């Protein structure tokens, strides 16, 4: 087949060739002329677009999923809405970019999204190597154990000799080995590849215990045939701080994300809720801290490059941290997660946001 190629000798005339090269160079030049146009900065881009592009999960129980009408709902989704409300004045001005585990960071770095709230653990390598800037932690997760009630186990320290379903190649696998060695217990690993596979193995009693992140365990438990027959043990054996993230290199935008998350946490500390915020924001009160928060005093919003009602808008859109938690993850939802570490520092948790002043 290639014979005919080799035999072929008719060369292109020099003019034709020259023209082609010129055309090619022009195209390249046009492409580069675009690159010269400066990127105005994420805040300006979002304001000009009138919509926040927010990277979420393409479906994770309690954190992000579309409802019957196609509206996105969930814990992470509400953080997106809060940022949109703070920047653009309305929690509906968000375009959700659903991503998988694999694509989330590339999508963020490629500029498909302005900000990421996707059940993402903050780690050194992601911060430094993947060039992300992490926002304050909005959910303290950790590895837990799911077990049948009928076995009568109430603490992970009683798990000696148990068979444990574990996803291979994960940090949870390593954490598990560490934990059992530290407690001088033996266990029998039942290796699986994915969460779904683990659930099947657990349900068909191939293992006594299933271990992964506690929030995932809660959704797994809710998906079992009879959730009430299973229990999540109180021990959490690893640190999984989940938080939002933005690209490296735009500190102003990172500040905005950071302070919106802080504002949601602070609102709960101050007792500001979606219900009472309209009343509170009407006129300055006696509490200077609250006045600064509500924008009735000082110029906190202006410093961030936002409207002075930024925090009021965010709370009006989604409520404070406690309300978001209750709505999507709390005891009244099928996930039935306790606040635990995610309670405010005033209530025994470790949520501790820097002050707005």
């Amino acid at each position, binding site marked *: 087949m290639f014979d*005919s190629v080799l035999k072929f000798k008719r060369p292109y005339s020099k003019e034709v060739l020259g023209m082609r090269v010129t055309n090619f160079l022009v195209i390249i030049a046009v492409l580069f002329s675009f690159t010269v*146009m400066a990127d105005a900065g994420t805040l300006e881009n979002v304001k000009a677009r009138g919509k926040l592009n927010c990277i979420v999960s*393409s479906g994770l*129980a309690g954190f992000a999923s579309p*409802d019957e009408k*196609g509206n996105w709902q969930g814990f992470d989704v509400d953080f997106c809405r809060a940022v949109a409300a703070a920047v653009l004045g309305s929690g509906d001005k968000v375009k959700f970019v659903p991503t*998988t585990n694999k694509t989330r960071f*590339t999508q963020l770095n490629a500029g*498909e999204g302005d900000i990421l709230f996707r059940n993402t653990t903050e780690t050194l390598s992601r911060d430094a190597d993947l060039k992300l800037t992490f926002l304050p932690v909005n959910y303290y997760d950790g590895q837990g154990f799911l077990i049948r009630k009928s076995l009568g186990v109430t603490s992970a320290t009683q798990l000696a000799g148990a068979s444990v379903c574990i996803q291979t190649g994960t940090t949870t696998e390593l954490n598990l080995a560490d934990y059992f060695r530290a407690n001088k217990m033996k266990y029998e690993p039942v290796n699986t590849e994915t969460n779904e596979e683990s659930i099947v193995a657990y349900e068909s009693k191939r293992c006594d215990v299933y271990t992964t992140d506690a929030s995932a365990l809660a959704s797994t438990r809710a*998906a079992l045939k009879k959730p009430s027959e299973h229990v999540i043990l109180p021990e959490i054996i690893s640190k999984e701080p989940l938080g939002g993230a933005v690209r490296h290199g735009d500190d102003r935008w990172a500040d905005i994300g950071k302070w919106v998350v802080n504002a949601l946490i602070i609102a709960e500390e101050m007792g500001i809720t979606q219900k009472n915020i309209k009343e509170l924001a009407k006129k300055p009160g006696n509490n200077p801290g609250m006045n600064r928060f509500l924008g009735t005093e000082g110029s906190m919003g202006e410093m961030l490059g936002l409207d002075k009602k930024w925090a009021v808008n965010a709370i009006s859109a989604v409520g404070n941290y406690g309300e978001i938690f209750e709505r999507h993850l709390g005891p009244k939802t099928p996930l039935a997660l306790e606040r635990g570490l995610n309670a405010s520092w005033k209530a025994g948790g470790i949520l501790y946001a820097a002050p707005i002043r």
Partner: protein
Amino acid sequence: MDWLFLDAAFTGGSRDECSAKAGGACWAVIGERLNLFTYGFYPAAERWRVNLSLVLLIFTLFPILFEKVPYRKYALHIAVAFPFVTAWLLVGGLGLTPVETDQFGGFMLTLVIGITGIGFSLPIGILLALGRQSKLPAIQIFSIGFIEFIRGVPLITLLFVASTMLNYFLPPGVTFDLLLRVLIMVTLFASAYMAEVIRGGLQAIPKGQFEAADSMGLHYWSAMRLIVLPQAMKISIPGIVNTFIGLYKDTTLVIIIGLLDPLGIGRASLADTKWTGLSTEVYLFVAIFFFISCFGMARYSQHLENKLETDHKR
């Protein structure tokens, strides 16, 4: 059977309501989310446009697929306008409210990608197949290079490149519609396979046919159009439909880049805390949809083969 129908709950607002009613399948999750499965995130007020497009699709397809349709000749001419009219209807602009393509989803997304891919890959595939056999080296090298490159790379990689890498190469601020990128990639991918299928058909045509065409004084395009291609295409029908079906099913891969086709919508629905744990129902529903479409295509290809059957059976 009991689980599927007799013992199943067809209505209800959540999985708990379902299991309170019956012990079998909970089809309410499909019923409640049928709109989401069909239209994705397409705005509710604009869904008539999707419906109208579907009606247009049926009116366009029938004259193309079947011979005994009245006024077929005119219908075929009008069919040329179909892609443009539908694109305008779905995307909007020029008097209609614009709808961003990332709002597309569900069955509608599958049909958009599938039909675009099928519609454009056939002509491009024919050109590539002819190009590969061309005596002009530039065209031949281009065709071979294109076909072998595309066939050497998995579709998922192409989609990944389309969704993320392209943005690194393009200057910041310049965006390229995500769905458009997907459509281009899927079409190119299918064209390469199509070209090889058709080349198989071309090679089965005896040399005498080419020579006969030449001796009639026909030039290249007429010879191809009147004599070679009709025969080659007939031979290739099973392979062509095979590629179509493969392409149609490959549309589910778009979930990797964050577009929610029926499978993606199904997964996302399972993540709704009201419906977690109903994976069997959801996956079964999606499977039935794909089976109906693919089986339909397969049956049509058999019908076509029988209709065009002119040789003696061996």
